[in-house]
């Protein structure tokens, strides 16, 4: 990612050549210090925490109690083995399913004459807007083995089938279906940018369309497929919400739920949690490294490059089959879960003995919504969520702009290091960032811990790679001649940025900030360890309601959060190109 951008970096602006040797390091030094505090310090504390036996919230921390005991115990613990096994299998299965679905849609949209392609493209990206916790909750309502709505309908129809979503299979399904968009974005962009000459040559040589697809197209986009699949795999490994809801009834643990259990123990086992976290980071870092190598020198998602007109395959009557698949996907991803949530939110009790009782109006009422808003924590969590979102958006937006500009538009030293540090958070699962921040900040004076600011900072750190990438694409589109003209007219660097660069890149900056805002509102994993009752946010409160067994209130809150997200994203889409950035964020 970064190396591609550096290869295209521009000629230095005249003003910078005059700075003294060490003075040129002041600005990158500041950026490196900020990145160090945001990213490196918490991760270092995490590794230290895994190597000691002190409880950071009770006894502070110190470097004198070094031990490998935690690592040894974690590596030999059969519970950890089982959690690791579950996590790897579910993420692998999910990634394969995501590749199958994502690739299929990418092909349908870019290479066939299926009707309603705009709608299909939207359907392909919709799952990204659904918080994973809400998706898992909706599917638990649909697919619970004895009382799930699907099973009630199946029983009513006389078929002897049952589904059970409280299983690895259920989790793989939800993973695959909701993370297919990651693969879609990579592969669709790759298919769009392919030079059709090779395929035309294959056709001329007499190979049929499917043969061409298998022997020419697929190998050419293989890096994109692998890349998207790997990214999906890494993200799935770090998800807490989906296994928390679907695996726990089956009494299976995943690495993320296991880490959370360790921290919620009485007394909390922070050191072991840190050890398991470093194990998780090792796996994801390896995957990210492999993905980086696959993509070396190629950018698949930015807007640069020549535009080809890809060959369209004429499917004939089969295009209605592909359309049907797309509609089925839309139904599975959006319609069915929304229906389940609405039913659970509006129904007084979830006792549904027959299909007929599902349609019994007397069973429905607004009490759950009333109970939801009777609880003062609800409005507080909404307020906090919005505050954290705004704080993260502004701080993250400003920081990302500074980093993006430094990396892509300047010749200051240390750019490669800054670029590298910026991409480190990709390899760290969200939950682990939360544990790391807890460890790093809980004992520092200044009272940052327990406020919304610690949440905002954790989110800025977590989503830094995505925001910088989104902003960078805008920055790279501004031709450097404009900046040079400004300098020639006598304006300094800051003035040039203010008068030329910012106004031109403003839509991209705004887009990046909205992206960060939306991601922060949805975030659960990293907030679980950093919140207090004062700073509780919507996603954590939703989990609280769920674990407290208040299904009706959970459903009501899920409906509310979905509508809120829809309104925010709809407004943002109207004003910016956020949707494509959100989808490309990964």
């Amino acid at each position, binding site marked *: 990612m970064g190396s591609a951008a550096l290869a295209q970096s521009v000629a230095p602006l005249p003003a910078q050549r005059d700075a003294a040797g060490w003075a040129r390091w002041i600005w990158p030094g500041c950026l490196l210090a900020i990145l160090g505090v945001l990213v490196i310090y918490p991760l270092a504390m995490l590794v230290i925490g895994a190597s000691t036996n002190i409880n950071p919230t009770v006894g502070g921390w110190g470097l004198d109690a070094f031990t490998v005991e935690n690592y040894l115990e974690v590596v030999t613990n059969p519970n950890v083995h089982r959690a690791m096994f579950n996590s790897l299998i579910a993420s692998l299965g999910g990634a394969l399913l995501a590749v199958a679905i994502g690739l299929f849609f990418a092909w349908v949209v870019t290479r066939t004459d299926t009707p309603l392609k705009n709608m299909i493209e939207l359907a392909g990206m919709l799952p990204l807007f659904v918080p994973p916790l809400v998706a898992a909750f909706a599917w638990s309502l649909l697919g619970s083995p004895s009382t799930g709505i699907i099973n009630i309908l199946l029983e009513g129809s006389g078929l002897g089938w049952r589904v059970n979503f409280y299983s690895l299979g259920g989790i793989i399904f939800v993973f695959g279906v909701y993370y297919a968009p990651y693969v879609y974005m990579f592969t669709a962009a790759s298919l769009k940018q392919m030079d059709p000459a090779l395929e035309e040559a294959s056709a001329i040589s007499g190979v049929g369309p499917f043969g061409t697809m298998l022997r020419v197209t697929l190998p050419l986009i293989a890096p994109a497929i692998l890349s998207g699949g790997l990214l999906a795999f890494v993200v799935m490994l770090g998800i807490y919400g989906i296994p928390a809801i679907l695996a726990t009834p089956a009494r299976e643990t995943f690495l993320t739920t296991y880490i959370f259990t360790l921290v919620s123990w*009485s007394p909390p086992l922070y050191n072991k949690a840190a050890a398991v976290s470093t194990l998780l980071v090792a796996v994801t870092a390896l995957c990210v490294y492999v993905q980086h190598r696959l993509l070396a020198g190629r950018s698949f998602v930015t807007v640069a490059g020549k535009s080809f007109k890809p060959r369209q395959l004429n499917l004939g009557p089969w295009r209605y089959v592909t359309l049907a698949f797309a509609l089925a996907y839309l139904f599975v991803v959006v319609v069915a879960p929304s229906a389940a949530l609405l039913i659970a939110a509006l129904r*007084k009790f979830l006792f549904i003995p027959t299909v007929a009782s599902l349609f019994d109006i007397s069973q429905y009422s607004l009490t759950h919504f009333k*109970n939801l808003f009777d609880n*003062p924590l609800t409005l507080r969590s909404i307020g906090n969520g919005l505050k954290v979102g705004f704080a993260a958006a502004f701080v993250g937006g400003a920081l990302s702009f500074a980093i993006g500009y430094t990396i892509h538009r300047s010749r200051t030293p240390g750019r490669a290091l800054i670029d590298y540090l910026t991409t480190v958070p990709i390899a760290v699962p969200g939950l682990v960032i939360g544990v790391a921040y807890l460890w790093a900040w809980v*004992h520092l004076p200044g009272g940052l811990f327990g406020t919304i600011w610690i949440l905002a900072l954790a989110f800025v750190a977590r989503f830094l790679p995505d925001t910088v990438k989104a902003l960078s694409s805008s920055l790279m589109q501004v031709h450097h001649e404009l900046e040079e003209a400004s300098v020639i007219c006598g304006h300094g660097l800051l003035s040039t940025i203010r008068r030329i660069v910012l106004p031109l890149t403003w839509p991209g900056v705004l887009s990046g900030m909205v992206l960060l805002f939306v991601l922060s509102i949805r975030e659960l994993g990293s907030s679980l360890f950093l919140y207090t009752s*004062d700073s509780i946010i919507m996603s954590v409160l939703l989990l609280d309601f769920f674990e*407290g067994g208040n299904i009706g209130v959970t459903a009501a809150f899920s409906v509310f959060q979905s509508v809120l997200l829809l309104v925010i994203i709809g407004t943002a889409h109207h004003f910016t190109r956020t949707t494509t950035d959100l989808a490309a964020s990964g």
Partner: protein
Amino acid sequence: MLTIRRALKLVVALGIAFGTASAVAQARFGSDDLIAKAKKEGNVVLYTANQLESEQLLAKGFNARFPEIKVEIVRAPGSQLIARIDAEAAGGKLRADVMELSDGGLASRYLPQLDNYAPPNAAEYPDSTRVGGKLWPKTTWGYVLSYNPALVKNPPKSWSDLIDPKFDQKLGIIPAGAGGTTWSLAMFHRQVLGEAYWKALAQKKFTFFSSDAPLASAVVRGEVTVAPLKSNSIIPMQREGAPIRIVYPDDGVSITVSAAGIPRTAPNPSAARLFMNWVLSREGQDVWVETSGGFSMLKGAKMPAGAEKLKLKLWVPDVKEYASLREAWIKEWNLLYNYRQ
């Protein structure tokens, strides 16, 4: 003759009388100074392991008496609550005005961080339920049985019915180590009903749940059909017409008493005291028993719905054994029930 003027005078007089009566009634719960300070603070934050709906009903009762003071409820299951309190306290961010744990044993380790406090009616509570002059039995839970009436035609009447070979319902249970009340129940089964019963019950097939509310929800939905539950998890839903019914087992109800206190760092100390005064008063305990269906340790307190006419055997664990036997017996319970932590 009732002229407008007379009617107005009547209304004003009634208003004053009502206001005074209300003020007099309020004064039962604390001095004028305390009430004034509490109203100024306007907020009381309660950390509890009790079920959210039950606490919300209690808060409604408190607000009927003191509408100016908002009650915020922060709820987490037993061990998570302790982890949260520890983390917040370490960061200097403990926001609890009232802290309530279901476990007297674990709660006593917080005694140094709690303020001295005693309600006006302290003498009406048994000595065994007061800890260190700082912790009080705000909530008393009783473990009973529940079933789904739409799916169960022959409901059990006692704990012993559960091990009857003909008993074949889908059972749900919360692990013994989840909190104070589940440990009491396990202790009750073993000490009162015997080792043989303890082992026999573990042979049944159970689905595990993390706490009462999800388990009660599962009974309503029919995922399990019979489950041990706390009475306050059953009675409100039963009253609203949900398909769940309470059974007071005739071989005994295991009672657990909570420990609630006011931390030294409470941001709203007067509101905290006023709230505790009200909750521990007869009126507060009545709200808990009548609307939520719980039990109470207050002398002469009422019994939950359906239990008034029964001669219930209420069993309260011995305080010392409750602490000393806990770790070993919970380990055995986990092995017997094949519950992996």
